[in-house]
């Protein structure tokens, strides 16, 4: 890991885990994790099933609390700047946040209203994701991959967000869907955004960044 001295006045965006420790009952799930996700990097968290990837991501975005340690955004604990951090955060979790009784459009309209997204772009984003023809059907009737696409449409609707925390964004997607997600993450990195994600699929070579393996940390 390199130590960069920041010369310019503005601090670049950075999401950091500082000795994050999480217990699951009596078992130590994550032991003092230190992690730094920098602007422009795609930081990948690797590990076997059950190694705590999802739990770590939930702590990183503030959905869950660590038993010890803190998560910092630009050097300040996120617990001290809840609203400011949430405004810059885009999280797509293990559960997609898509209501089965609502159509794709209704789901995304609410997501845009909650997260200052661009409502007028919904149709074109759904078109790019090839789900515009089924956008008026309740999401519960769509396939897993199509529901995943509805959730991922938020990536294109909220380009102003600075910190993306994505849990398995490529799961259930076909090649065209994976390419679309990759292009969105690439564009976000080029805007100088922070990306933290987990995946079991190989990532495109265009996406650069460190890989933190939770298995290796266990062994070491």
């Amino acid at each position, binding site marked *: 890991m390199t130590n960069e001295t920041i010369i310019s006045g503005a601090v670049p965006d950075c999401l950091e885990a500082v000795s994050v420790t999480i217990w699951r009952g009596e078992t130590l799930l994550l032991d003092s994790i230190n992690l730094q996700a920098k602007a422009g990097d795609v930081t990948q968290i690797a590990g076997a099933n059950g190694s705590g990837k999802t739990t770590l991501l*939930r702590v990183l*975005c*503030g*959905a*869950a*609390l660590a038993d010890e340690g803190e998560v910092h955004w630009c050097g300040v604990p996120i617990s001290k700047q809840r*609203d*400011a951090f*949430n*405004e810059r*955060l885009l*999280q797509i*979790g*293990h*559960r*997609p*946040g*898509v*209501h*089965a*009784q*609502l159509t794709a459009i*209704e789901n995304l*309209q*609410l*997501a845009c*209203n*909650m*997260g*200052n*997204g*661009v409502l007028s772009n919904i149709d074109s984003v759904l078109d790019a994701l090839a789900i515009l023809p089924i956008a008026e059907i*309740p999401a519960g009737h769509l396939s897993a991959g199509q529901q995943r696409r509805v959730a991922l449409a938020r990536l294109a609707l909220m*380009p*102003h967000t600075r910190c993306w925390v994505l849990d398995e964004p490529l799961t259930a997607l076909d090649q065209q869907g994976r390419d679309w997600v990759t292009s969105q993450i690439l564009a976000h990195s080029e*805007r100088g955004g922070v990306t933290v994600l987990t995946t079991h699929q190989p990532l495109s070579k265009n996406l650069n960044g460190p890989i933190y393996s939770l298995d290796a940390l266990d062994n070491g």
Partner: protein
Amino acid sequence: MDSHPQSIGLVALFRSLLSRELAVAIRSPGQWLNPILFFIIVITLFPLGVGPGPNTLSIIAPGVIWVSALLSVMLSLQSLFYDDLHNGSLEQFVLSAQPLSVVVLAKVLAWWLLAGLPLLLVSPLLAILMNLQGSAIPVLMLSLLLGTLTLILVGAIGAALTATVGNGGGILMSLLVLPLTVPVLIFGSGAVQAAASQMPVGGHLSLLVALLALALSLAPLATAAALRVAVSAG
């Protein structure tokens, strides 16, 4: 560089959340039709069980109608946050920069429109069935208007606290919330009894207004805090 978009106002956000809740509820009518049917069925069974003596019925009418309303609201509330917790919407609400209490208020108002307002509308018919004095019916409706809103606001705290419990949540929620709802029951049925016996009802009704004001100002905050805990546990 993208221009930073402006946040929509809280009123617009509230309206969009309210229409979402109503759209969801209209597509799954069982959730809010059941409590209304429960209310009607319980009250229509009383004349059959107690016997149709007009005097007996009119004495017990205020209590029977109010207890049925209380139970029907409590039974309906268990599932208030279940779907949103399990499909991840609640996590998105918690992680947004918008205040969670606005989400709670929108949910409460939507639920009242679907499961509270209908009780109010059928109550005159049931009051006649129970031989309640005609002059007490406007007071019954007014007390139910104030009372059901308070009950749903208070019940939402319990629903949020027990959202992660699963099947046993209903009983636990009733245990937690019923003590808090007793004042509403006492002053609600008290107002109707007073009206039926030509006594002044101002005192009872103003206490119901006070309870509503208290619930309206504190319950959304408490519910939002409980939802944050539910999301972080889940």
